[in-house]
């Protein structure tokens, strides 16, 4: 616990880290409490007018169907956050397990895992995602499993690379010579030393998964209307951008601020943990 506090302090030491943490916390808290805060029902249509600009009643105006934009924006990140948080968790868990395993065992196991990773990377993941969603629907569970699977492939590569740096250290050899089991070495010797890299990379991957989720909902595959969602709101309102900018701008700002917040936090985290040398590549 003390370690977590120290890490947070390190992140908050820089200005960009502070901004990042504030943004991320704001979004997380908002997602939790928004249902009790919103001024209107997200599906309620104003009978009188649509596409109205900001007013005292509707601070961010109304959309084409006359629904309150502020309400929908406040609620629009909930499903995205739910899916991507669990999805990232899943990706990091299975990805780092196989990555550390491949890096530590080396030899044939490593060959097998890495060749499979190479092959899976060749599969056009976006098409696959759309296909799965088109067939099995867009229930959060489906999204979590598929996103978690595809994003885990990159985690395998990354975790393996981090492990390879640790595995050559004599303390790993010492543990092996002592007769420790493979699982114990992975958990006690390797994991604590790749933890920092994993944390930073997980944060980055969370932001990319959010990008992917919002792209999916922009394409109409992410959530089912009338559930409010930023990507879908942008897709539905963007053709009226010149006429009514609010229904586009609000979700745009919300989504971007969340993703930028995550990235600023991840960068500050990397710097304070001294792992800013990692490539932080997509895969």
């Amino acid at each position, binding site marked *: 616990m003390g370690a977590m506090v120290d890490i947070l302090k390190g992140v908050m030491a820089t200005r960009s880290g502070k901004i990042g943490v504030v943004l991320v916390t704001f979004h997380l808290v908002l997602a939790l409490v928004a249902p009790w805060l919103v001024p209107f029902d997200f599906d309620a249509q104003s009978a009188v007018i649509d596409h109205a600009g900001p007013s005292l009643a509707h601070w961010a105006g109304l959309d084409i169907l006359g629904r309150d934009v502020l309400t929908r924006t406040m609620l629009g990140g909930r499903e995205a956050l739910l899916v991507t948080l669990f999805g990232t968790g899943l990706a990091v868990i299975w990805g780092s397990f196989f990555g550390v395993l491949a890096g530590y065992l080396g*030899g044939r196991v490593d060959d097998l895992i890495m060749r499979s990773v190479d092959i899976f990377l060749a599969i056009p993941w976006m098409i696959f995602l759309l296909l799965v969603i088109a067939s099995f629907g867009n229930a959060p569970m489906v999204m979590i499993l598929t996103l978690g699977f595809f994003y885990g492939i990159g985690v395998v590569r990354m975790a393996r690379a981090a492990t390879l740096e640790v595995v050559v*250290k*004599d*303390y790993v*050899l*010492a*543990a*092996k*010579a*002592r*007769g*420790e089991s493979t699982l114990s070495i992975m958990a*006690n*010797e390797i994991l*604590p*030393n790749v*933890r920092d890299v994993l944390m930073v990379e997980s944060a980055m991957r969370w932001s990319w998964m959010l990008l992917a989720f919002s792209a999916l909902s922009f394409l109409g595959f992410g959530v089912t209307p009338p559930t409010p969602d930023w990507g879908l709101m942008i897709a539905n309102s963007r053709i009226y951008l010149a006429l009514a900018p609010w229904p586009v701008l609000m979700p745009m700002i919300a989504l971007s601020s969340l993703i930028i917040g995550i990235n600023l936090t991840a960068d500050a985290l990397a710097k304070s943990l001294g792992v800013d040398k990692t490539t932080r590549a997509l895969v």
Partner: protein
Amino acid sequence: MTAPLLTIENLSIGFRGPDDQPVFIVREVNMSLAAGETLGLVGESGCGKSSLLLAMMGYYKPGLGRLSGSLSYDGEDPGLISSHQLQALRGGGMALIPQNAGQALTPTLRIKAQMIEVLRLHSDLAPSAWHPRCIELFERVKLPAPEQMLKRYPHELSGGQQQRVAIAMALAGEPNLLLLDEPTTGLDVTTQVEVLALLQEICRDLGTAMVYVSHDIQVIQKVCNQIAIMYAGEIVEMGSRATLLAAPVHPYTQGLLASIPRLHQQTLPRPIAGEMLQPVHRGSSVGCGYANRCLLATDQCQATSPAPRVVMDRWVKCHEVEAAVAGELIRPAQKLLAPALGENLLLAVEDLSVSYQRPSLVRALLGHKPLATVQGVTFGIRQGEILGLVGESGSGKSTILKTIAGLQRSLSGRITLSGTDDLAGPVESRARGCLRKVQLVFQNPDASLNPRKTIGEILRRPLELYFELAPTVMNDEVDALLHRVNLPESYKGRFPGQLSGGEKQRVAIARALAAKPELILCDEITSALDVSVQAAILKLLLDLRADSGVSLLFVSHDLAVVETLCDSVLVLEGGEVREAGLCAEVFKNPQHAYTQALMKAVPIADPRKRKDENDVVHIT
């Protein structure tokens, strides 16, 4: 006497700490060097010798800078001239020969391109003359097949060849001053001898002045006429080689010379207590940097920095010079005699062969035999014996050790412990009780302890694994282990990053001891340590053996260390045993030509053994 080529006055290098306090890497250094003179800068790692050397070229590592003082080469300060002049000076007037030539050559450029780069910048030769000049330089540094060398990439050369290319490159600009930064560290002893001979020859023939930085005073005294001893950023003693080595004055110089293990001297090297403080810990303290380790230190030493004085034809920075001159700090300690060794073999290695090639089905079908790194090695270790395994890189000494530890599969042969336990198989196939009996200590103390675990956790792990102990007993056991390696109990809560190199190595030894082993395998465990710390570790090993009768297999490339520590020795070359026997006999009368060559290659730090020079006493 001509005007000095290089003068340094009151030079301090460092950075500004958090409170704008200066942190000194190099502190108030004064020296001068005449044309053609050779000066050796000796000091432990972190004493600031490399920073001082680079400052002579007007270069400071990122984050560092000159805090005060002045520097002048040929009448000009490299820190004040234009970048154009500086570019002409670097590689032209003065040239650097770097520590690790393999990493100092650009991997993507052929040797020729890198040589010509220097010639274009620092010679007046026409482009057509570049190629012949390269060949000439390569012949000068005795590189074989110079034409082919030019076409190669750096990674296609051996370590010795890379170092020769670096020397040729430095000579290409016909410099008046050569700066050498540990140019032979990392080379095998036999290669080192050749490179040192070449450097001596260059000095003699070309009359180039030299500043030679090394941690190894034995190497320095082969090449340099002047010696400066650095400690904690300061030059503490400087004088001609003969006077300085014959009668060292500064307590640190005395201690340093006494801590070096030497061939053919039946004495134990004497450690200096403690370790040098790192710059950040030294801070801007005002006292003598050596005061915390010095036996003669007084209150004055803690309070003020000593002013340099000329004593006995040399320049010394010490408050207690008189006491140092009078006192006999160097008291040769007697070599501890091995306890009577039993006849019973603890470890028997018979006809061991090891290969790093993965056995593949295709190769086996084609009848290819895997290339063996170690071939047909046989030896034994008795109860309480210390056996030295000596050889150059690639001799297979570490491979043998790893095979015994079960980290490397053997190809054939038998390894047995106490006549019953079979150690031929890998770790996975061994019983826990058998694993406990053989423990391992590694070379690099920075890599051998998990940085995320406290010292207490590290020491507790083998106890948990091999013994079933109650928590309170466990705690006492950890305390006892720390005590045995002379570390305070308070270290339990620290992380490895908070310990110095020597302390980490003590923890690594304590971890091995925790298993109550019968055999400890030591893989070059002192080679990453400073010589004054190494002596303490050697002493510790001998004490442990005396206390518990544990046997040691001690792998090393350093003959003097092996002679000092071991009872018997095994000389390896190319994976085969060249010579084996008791230390006393092998070192006195080596039979095999390779052993003789190895022993000849050891530089001897004894001025009386070298009478060929006309030493110039030159004191600023």
